Structure formats: C-alpha cells, structure tokens
C-alpha cells in the first residue's frame, strides 16, 4: 500500500516544531505500524534527511515505551493494543496518516515523537512501593493467604505498562488512571495496608505538582488503555484518598 504521512518534527525541547509530509510506497499490510516507520526512516536516511525519532523497544506490547498519537488517537485506531502491536491492515491504501507525540504539559516533547515521561517516575518514587528490604528472612510466601478476588483485582491494576496513553487521550491531561492503578494494586493487598494512607496522599500530591489535570469521568482513558485498566480503579483511589484525608494518622 502507498501512504502519505504527516509527521511531527521537532529538533529539541526548545524548538517550536511542525508537521512534515513524507510518502511511503509498497508497504505490506502485514507490517506493523512501527515497521512502516522503519521503512520511512530508511528512505529518509538514503535521501540524506535525518530520520524521525520515535520511542520503541520490546515491540510486543509490554514495555510501554512506544507512544504515538495516530490520526487523533493514542496508539492509533485499533483497541487493546500499543502502537507496536498496531498493524497496517487497519489502514487503507492511499490514506493520509497523522502521526504526533503525546501532548501534555507534564510530558514535554524531547525530539520529534519522543516525550519526557519522567513525571511518571517521580509519582512512583513518591510512594509506589512497599517498604520492605531485601532479606532472606521475610515470612514464607504462603503465610499470607490473599483472597483470590483481591489478588486478581490487584493483578489487573498491576498490568499497567506506564505508557501514558491515558494522559495523552484525556482532554484534561489527567494521570488519574495511571496513579489509580498503582494505588489500587497495593490497596487491594494486605502487604500495602501499613503505608496505604501516606501512599495515596503522597502520590496524588506529586501528581498535582507535576501539572497533570483532574479527572472529569469522560472514560476516554479506559477506552484507549492498551491493557484495559478500568476506571473503577479511579473510584477506588478516590475512596482511598478521601478516607486517608479525613481520618487520623493512626
């Protein structure tokens, strides 16, 4: 198939950036979207133009690195996939495709299609852990039975890959789904109880400090999430936050 690509080019953080038009021909419908970009870049290199920088790594939908806004949708037109799992059969021959980076003040563009997601890192560092040191003397794993339902709810929350599609797709640039997933994972597990109050307060505070917006329950994040994280976890986080805010320390 032959395609016209409108790609966001931006030299560095300071550059204003803009869309450039490139044409690619003879793309197989079996190719993945990123393999199509490989072909485009190979072509640019041969023409003496600097290739388009984009983030990608595992190319099997689990590392959370790839992050493209394609025709106005985070990770493109398919559902429950990351950009690397998107295939060209989702597009039509002769189509024009718009390719942009995530857009959020809390995730500035570094170059072309690559954004800086270190705000996510700082949120995790503010409380996304259980304070247990490595030692050969933690209790036996089966000394702590966990009801299967809670274990499964914790797992579904923990499936988040931290790609940032929820932020990119939200009209408020809210990171609530991402933060809620981590808060909920620990809130559903007994290991997370000791630090539960401080965790949710710290993580929400850091989220606000980073400049992410608030949640207005449009549910767009859930639709675009490649791992189908449910917005019910946002409700869970709100409950945790409320109870932590209006109860005493002990």
């Amino acid at each position, binding site marked *: 198939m032959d395609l016209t690509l409108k790609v966001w080019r931006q030299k560095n953080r300071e550059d204003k950036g803009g869309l450039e038009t490139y044409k690619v021909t003879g793309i197989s419908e079996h*190719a993945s979207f990123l393999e199509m970009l490989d072909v485009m870049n190979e072509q640019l290199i041969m023409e003496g133009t600097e290739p388009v920088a984009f983030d990608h790594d595992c190319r099997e939908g689990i590392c959370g690195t790839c992050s493209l806004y394609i025709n106005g949708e985070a990770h493109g037109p398919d559902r429950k996939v990351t950009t690397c*799992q998107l295939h060209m059969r989702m597009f039509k021959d002769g189509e024009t495709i718009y390719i942009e980076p995530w857009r959020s003040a809390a995730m500035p563009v570094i170059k072309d299609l690559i954004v800086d997601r270190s705000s996510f890192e700082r949120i995790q560092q503010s409380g996304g852990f259980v304070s247990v040191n490595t030692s050969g003397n933690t209790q036996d794993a089966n000394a702590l039975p966990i*009801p299967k339902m809670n274990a499964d709810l*914790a797992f579904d929350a923990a499936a988040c890959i931290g790609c940032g599609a929820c932020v990119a797709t939200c009209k408020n640039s809210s990171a609530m789904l991402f933060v809620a997933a981590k808060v909920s994972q620990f809130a559903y597990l007994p290991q997370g109880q000791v630090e539960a109050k401080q965790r949710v307060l710290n993580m929400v505070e850091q989220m606000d400090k980073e400049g992410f917006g608030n949640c207005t329950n449009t549910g767009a994040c859930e639709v675009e999430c490649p791992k189908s994280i449910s917005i019910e976890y946002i409700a869970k986080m709100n409950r945790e936050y409320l109870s932590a805010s209006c109860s005493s320390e002990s």
Partner: protein
Amino acid sequence: MSVLDSKIPDGPLKDKWTNHKNKIDLVNPANKRNIDIIVVGTGLAGGSAAASLAEMGYNVKSFCYQDSPRRAHSIAAQGGINAAKNYQNDGDSVYRLFYDTVKGGDYRSREANVHRLAEVSGNIIDQCVAQGVPFGRDYGGLLDNRSFGGVLVSRTFYAKGQTGQQLLLGAYSALNRQIAKGKVTMYNRHEMVELVKVNGKARGIIARNLETGELERHSAHAVVIASGGYGNVFFLSTNAMGSNATAAWKIHKKGAHFANPCYTQIHPTCIPRSGEHQSKLTLMSESLRNDGRIWVPKNMEDVLAIREGKLKPTDLSEDQRDYYLERRYPAFGNLVPRDVASRAAKERCDAGFGVNETGEAVYLDFASAIQRYGKQEAAIARMENPSDEEILKLGEAVIESKYGNLFQMYEKIVAQDPYKTPMMIYPAVHYTMGGVWVDYNLMTSVEGCYCIGEANFSDHGANRLGASALMQGLADGYFVLPYTIGDYLSNDIRTGKISTDSAEFVEAEKEVSDRIEKLMDIKGTKSVDHFHKLLGKAMWEYVGMARNEEGLKKAMAEIKQIRTDFWNDVRIPGDKYSLNPELEKAGRVADFLELGELFAKDALYRNESCGGHFREESVELDGMQKGEAKRNDTDYAYVAAWEYKGEPADAVMHKEELEFKDIELKQRSYK
C-alpha cells in the same frame, strides 16, 4: 595452570554457600556510606541489585538506556519463575531443582553456582510476595503453581502470562524507594560506552547521555554489569529492539573473558517472519505445546497448494498430515525440549515442507484439543448426543480460558483466528546462555567488575530450562551479589572518593569520543540496519540451529568482511550532540560485528553437540538415537572463556574444566 580461578568454596556442595557467606568480610555501615557502586542495566538482575545494595547503605548509580528502569526487557518474560518451595507436595526439593537445571543445561554449567541458585530460589518468592507482586493464587488464597518443560514437578510461580512484568515492577518499586531516599541516583536514557580501569581495577564508566549526546565520567569502587543477553546479534530475535551487548563487550575488551558465546537458545514457538520489513519476532509461550499438535503436510503438492492459497490446512485429512514430532519422538511427542523441537522444525522446512510464503513455518494445531475438551465438557454437563457445533463451542471455551491472551496476541499480529485454523510457528533466537565469565562471587576477570543475570554465563550451561531466567536474574541481584561484593569492597574502605580527573578517565573519554567521531565521519552509502541485517543473515545461516565446520569458517570470514564494509560505508545522519538513534544503533552493531565472529569461532572449536549448540559432525550414527545430538564429555566438559586479543579471530581460549561430583552425566533421550 589455568588463568581462571573460579573460587568455588571447599566443602560439601550443600554447605558451600552457607559457609562462604559466613566467612565473607563485611563492610561496616558507616563505611558503606563512603563506597560507590555503578550498576549498568535495570532488568531483574540490575534493578534488584541496585535496590538491595542501596538498602545496605552503599551509594548506587544506576544506568539504563530506556526512559525508565521499568522498561528493561525482563518485562517481556511470560511463563513464570521456578522455586523449590514444594507447595504442591510433589516431592520437590533444592536438590531436585539443582539436578533438573544441571541436566537441562546438558551438563555444561558450574555445579556450585547452580546449587546456590536452587538454595535461594525460595527466598525470591518470599521477597516478591512481601513487595506486593500479585502472583496467581488459588481459591484458598495460597500461591498457585504450573509445570514447565523438562521437569516432573510443579514448581513454577506465575502472574498470568506477565510474570516478568510483575517481577520487574516489584524490583522497580524497591528501586524507586531508594531513588526517593537519595541512595540510588538514576540515570535514564544513558548508555555505558566504556569501562574505566585504574591500576587494573574497575573504577568507573564513560556514559553517553542519549538525549544530549554528551559524554559523562562516572567513578565508583565497583562496577556491576547487568545488561542482558546478546541475542540481537542475529538481527531478528525475541529481544527488544534496543537490547544490546555493548556494556558486556566493552568490559570484554578491557580484560573480562567472554564464556561460551556459542550457547544460544532458539525457541521453537515464535510467530514466523512475514516479510523483509520484519524488525523482531514474537514468542508464543512454551505452554501452548501442552495442547497443540505440530505438523506439516505429508505431500509436496499440498504444501505448494497451501502456499498459493488454493488449499487450506483444515482441508487436509489426518493421513495427509505429518505430525513429525509424534513420529520421531513417540515418548515425548510435542513436548520434547526446546532445542529438539526447533531442530525438527528446521529439518522439515529445509526439506521444503514449510507452509507459508517464506517456506519457514509449521502448523501448531489445536483442533484435536478443542474436540477433546469439548467432549469432556459435554460429558460433565451431562449432555446427550451433543452436536458437533456444541462440542466445538465448549472446547473453544476451554482453550480460551487457558491461552486466551496468547491467541489474541497471535490474531492481532497475523490476522488469522487460531481457534478456526492452525497457528503458524517457527523457531527464533530467544536467550543466550553464554556471556561474561565470572567466578563464584560473580566477579569477572577484571578486578572489581561484576556481571550478573543473562549477561553472565554461569547457571544455564548449554541450554536453559523454562522459568529459570527470572529465577537467576533475581537470585544474582537480591541474594548473591549484595553479599559477595562486600568481600571485595571491604578492602576499599580507605580508598576514598575516586576522582574522574585522572589520566585513565581522560583517556577513556577520548577513546569514546574518537570512536564516535570516526563513525560520524564515514558518511557512507548504507544504513546501520543494512549491515545489521547482513550480520543476522550470516549468523542465522551458519551459526543458527545446526552448525558445521565449513559453515562456521565461512561465517567468520563473512562477518569480518561485513565489519570492514561497515567501517567504510555506514551512513549515520544527524548530530553526535543530540538525541540520535542511528548513532546509538551504530555503536551497538559495531560491537555485534565483533561478537558475532567470536561466537562463530567458539562454535567452531566446540566439536560436539550439546544443548542449544548442534554440530552436524557430532551426531549418533546408529541405534535408537540415530541422527540425534551427540555430546562429548571426555573432550568438551569445559567452559570456553575467551580472552580479547584485538581481532576476534585472535582471541585466546582458557578452559575451566567442569567437575560433577554430585551428578552422574547421562545422555538425554526423548524417543
């Protein structure tokens, strides 16, 4: 006298680790605050090591090329992690896990290291649960287990098909806690490009800031390499696009011996290549072979008709199909180990029976399993005379509950419904058992430089069993290195801060800067990928699933030529002082072009078949095992550790003889 001192402690196998730990010199807490450690890589091994060392009080600098430590490729591991917990009461023990791992490795791993691995395996599960890793549980709330290939017990812990992800997020959370405390300084989007030695000891690294392109000097009292395997030397593999051998290769060039590079695991069940644009391959979990039957058509006409689209695989009757694994290995059938299954697929495809356009695919068929489960479910539901459609529906539901996520992944990539038509699969490079040589303390042959996880060679011999990679990464990072490194650092409490202004740092930085300059100045006519693909083709053709002397010699010559062409004709656009993915790739491919040649040389010198390394000259000639791999314990029961001498062809081999005191060496048979 060998130059290799493996420093295996004396005493009975089962007491070695305990006694060794008791005798290790300790560093007092006040002194730990004055000691810096660099950890390169943030996967299961690097992430867990950095977090544990920081908890102990050392100052840690952690480096990864990704934008977050959570994205290291450990995250893609699907199946599970082994531990000798015996929760299923099936007679598992530390000894059995140890025995299975040594046997599975075709008797080419170091006994003492593997026993230690089995000893600490239980601690790993305890530690991960304490961190909040959501393992699969049963309705009683206790941990569930699965079984994996090559063993007779259920000792594999799992978190659906995302075990690697959940374990890595556990290590990442421990790391985050230390970053927040200021005990770990995290350098994301940084790549180690050189090791710095001062007076023969590893004292720091040169790193390139991948966003700005600037070179940075970082000093430390010890350097830990945890940068993963080198499977991407084949261009196509199940590794991530960025997975590379650069850190491991740089320390090799500074004196760390590289052991058994020829040991590569080629996984039998991956989604086949779909064309020239292919950039990587995707694994389908080994668990699928529990229910899938592997076949190709018996007759060549049918193969050709299928390729042309005139015939569908479901049109072929049972007697027109060749279930070649069941035919060749009646005892194990579709569940033969990974290396055997991979070679059998290659044999059929080489004979022309491959079922897709490229001729490199075989079928993995679930139709029989769907029928079997469907009838079973109908019986359970007490249905009288269920219709074919009802049986199909019930059977598909069972398959979906077991493998739903894998089937969905397949459908997204191939756009075929594996419930209705057989999957197409083909072997792909998956894991490298070889790596940097380390002693019992995980120190390389460069003093003060350690190597852990997939990047080292020690625990899996010539073949790795399923669910053992995660176990080794976390064992090294949580429970082995944090102890053994203290023994070395206890001598460094008076050293004080290490300056980055010394001649050694200046020189190392200049070396890197000259190399980058040289690459940028070539301004040739071909892209980096062009050379990487050529290398991959040579590796796959001559150093892939089956190897022979003639091919290996050819591979060495070809790779050398590709390397020369690369340094004369590669084109790297852009600026060195900016985010430049082509420059990053070029540096990595330059290293692969050297490693690939050593890989072929190692395979050439190992004139026996063992595990993932199959030499066509070393096969059983008659009897039941005719045509199968023939190991040679008399001449090759050693580790080949290569010393760098300039050109890869000039590398010098040092042998570490392997001693098996607690295990009898046996031929593997699956007939």
